[in-house]
């Protein structure tokens, strides 16, 4: 693995353009950059929400994302990789998570970004609580997130 992943867990918002530029500026070996932005929606299971609050496990969250970033870099020929996950209170329309994967080739960039998002959803120690009409509730995990992560397992 020759690429060093940038991993940040922060309350502040992020700037997609700046993160893309950080992986491409001044370089001529990057042919493809895929960014994924996860955004807070204004409803959860059809019910309106006022905001999400994201809790995480400090230390483990960084370690878990780092392991998955390392696995992505080992599986695909990447030139750069950035993962930013916000915590704290996040209102509808605001960013939650960002993955940027850069490579010489488009399929490597697409696959690495999708792999990381699937693994983050199923394995990274973050928990979302919604503020809805009926008070605050922890959002339940969805089985299809586990299934999405499992499809990357080598058989």
């Amino acid at each position, binding site marked *: 693995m020759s690429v060093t992943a940038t991993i940040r867990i922060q309350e502040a918002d992020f700037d997609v353009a700046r993160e893309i530029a950080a992986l491409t500026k001044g370089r001529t070996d990057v042919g493809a950059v895929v960014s994924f932005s*996860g955004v807070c929606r204004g409803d959860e299971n059809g019910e309106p929400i006022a905001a999400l609050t*994201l*809790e*995480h*496990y400090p*230390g*483990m969250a960084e*370690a*878990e994302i780092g392991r998955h970033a390392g696995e992505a870099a080992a599986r695909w020929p990447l030139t750069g990789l950035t993962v930013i*996950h916000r915590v704290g209170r996040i209102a509808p329309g605001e960013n*939650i*998570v960002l993955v940027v994967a850069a490579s010489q080739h488009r399929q490597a960039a697409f696959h690495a970004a999708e792999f990381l*998002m699937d693994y*983050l*959803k*199923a*394995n*990274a*120690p*973050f*928990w*979302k*609580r919604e503020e809805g009409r009926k008070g605050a509730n*922890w*959002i*339940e*995990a969805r089985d299809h*997130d586990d299934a999405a992560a499992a499809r990357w397992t080598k058989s």
Partner: protein
Amino acid sequence: MKVKYFAWVRERIGIPEETIEPPAEVRTVSDLIGWLSSRGEGYAYAFETPKVIRAAIDHAHVRPDAAIMGAREIAFFPPMTGG
């Protein structure tokens, strides 16, 4: 050893972390869940459905049958909902 709780596990137990000294017969994560459940109502409520509880030892996911010997930090939490 240090134990940490997150999300609704933390809320039900009422504290985010504590230091415990379980007896020697508590060998696995599953044993530890059973032992913790006997410590009070909040614990019993947090662990009432053990199969939904996820655990990590020293920042790595583990299964219920994982040995806890040598662990510095064990964490319990619900299924993750990040991303």
